[in-house]
């Protein structure tokens, strides 16, 4: 048994370490305690089928939150709630409240286009537009009606640098984006999202179609991006969730089974189903 003093010292060490990590990782000095995303008593239906059952979640800004769970567990549905991409699906119905930076996003006053500028999304398969690399990144600004060429040029360069793609494509900005490799395409898609300066980036299995090297690059990128953005990522790769996320949420059959710090989930899950899933003993 540890005595009090020893425990205090451990705590002290841990606090110091986390702080150190935080400084190393984010370079942030202050910590914003307000939640970026809040979901309350959320139920989602597709026709008769209930895809999400009474989900509650708070997501801190400047963190990476990973959703894990077997296929069809509702994690992608939940992700797409945050930028209302489910709205196009027939029979989609939602109950409960979802706030993104303090605004209820399913209220009638919200304009979808505005929400999506604030909440960007990266998809499973790299899906660049069949246009030039430049136009891909500039797209978000163009549809906002930005005409200032200099501004667009600057933003495109900055976004491509953020995703560490600039050096690879700077001489081919006017080449078709579809000529890039899969990993480059996915980074381009992330750059495209960054160009409109969102607050939140949703990633729906962003590396499942990529090779390990490209996957590593994207993971590194996610690690860097959380300095400036709140990232929510759905992944089938449990190890990926462990590597890159600060918080992990485990979904099963539309229910949020367990959520917490990734460290805690992966070293000491509270729920048996979570443990079975992350240890690969599922089913």
């Amino acid at each position, binding site marked *: 048994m540890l005595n009090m003093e020893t425990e205090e*010292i*451990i705590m002290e060490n841990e606090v110091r*370490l986390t702080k150190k990590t935080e400084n190393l990782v984010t370079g942030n000095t202050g910590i914003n305690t307000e939640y970026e995303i809040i979901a309350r008593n959320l139920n989602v239906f597709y026709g008769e089928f209930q895809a999400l059952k009474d989900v509650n979640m708070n997501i801190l800004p400047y963190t990476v939150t990973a959703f894990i769970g077997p296929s069809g567990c509702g994690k992608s549905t939940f992700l797409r709630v945050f930028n209302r991409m489910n709205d196009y699906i027939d029979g989609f119905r939602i109950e409960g409240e979802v706030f993104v930076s303090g605004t209820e996003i399913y209220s009638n006053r919200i304009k979808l286009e505005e929400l999506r500028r604030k909440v960007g999304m990266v998809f499973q398969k790299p899906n660049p537009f069949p246009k030039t690399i430049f136009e891909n990144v500039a797209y978000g600004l163009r549809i906002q009606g930005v005409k200032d060429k200099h501004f667009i040029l600057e933003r495109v360069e900055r976004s491509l640098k953020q995703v560490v793609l600039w050096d690879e494509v700077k001489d081919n900005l006017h080449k078709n984006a579809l000529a890039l490799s899969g990993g480059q395409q996915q980074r381009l898609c992330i750059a495209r999202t960054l160009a409109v300066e969102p607050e939140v980036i949703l990633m729906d299995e962003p590396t499942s179609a990529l090779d390990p090297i490209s996957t590593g690059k994207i993971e*590194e990128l996610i690690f860097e991006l959380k300095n400036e953005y709140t990232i929510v990522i759905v992944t089938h790769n449990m*190890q990926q969730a462990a590597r890159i996320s600060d918080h992990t949420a485990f979904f099963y059959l539309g229910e949020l089974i367990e959520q917490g710090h*990734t460290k805690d989930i992966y070293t000491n899950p509270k729920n048996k189903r979570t443990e079975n899933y992350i240890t690969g003993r599922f089913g």
Partner: protein
Amino acid sequence: MKPFEYEIENIKTLVNEMFDLVKDQVHLTKEALLTSDHDLSGEIMRKEKRVNAYELSVDREIEDFLALQAPVATDLRFAIAILKISASLERIGDHAYRISTLVFDEQLKVNKGIVELLQISTLFDEIDDMLINVSDALEKGEIELAKKVFKQDKTLDKINKKLPGLLDEHYKNKKNIDLHNIILISRVVGKLERVGDLIKNIAEEIIFYYESEVIRHRKKNLKISKKLGEATGEAESEKTGMEE
């Protein structure tokens, strides 16, 4: 830098701090012992909790590192080596603590003559140096420094081995022998010799981490086989390869 490289840096920092603390403990123990400083030995005993806390912190960090990063190859060896190194450091801390309790509880007093006779200063200085060598070896990846420790450990062994003979010689024609103190002092020397072995273990882990070479038990197994007149074989050395 990859995300997990930050983790490795964190753990390395933690272990370095633990090294510094243990070096400090050993150093202070020498002072407390030679000057029979009651207060100082008390302080060392208090600080032992810190050493323990460091071991637990390292354990927890390694657990997270293994769970989250699923390290392989060099990173996996790093995690395993660090686990064992921190355990060894903790035990070195324990020995410093026990020596201090001898000063604190048993009022152990050493006179100059016996210090010189048993080369106690040399023992401590050698251990200081060995600790510096292994911590530098770990930090900079200099295997040569780690290998140096094996030779240094032999010095400790030699002194320890000579101990009965020396004491015998010294007290041969003397009366008023303070047997209590003599037993205690020989315990101190024994503990210091054990510290040397622990540092040797640390050096072995460092070599394992950097070169993936397992040198533990190798020589010792050979020696045992020779003594017992056995043929040396892999299987045999496996069987006898128990923790000393």
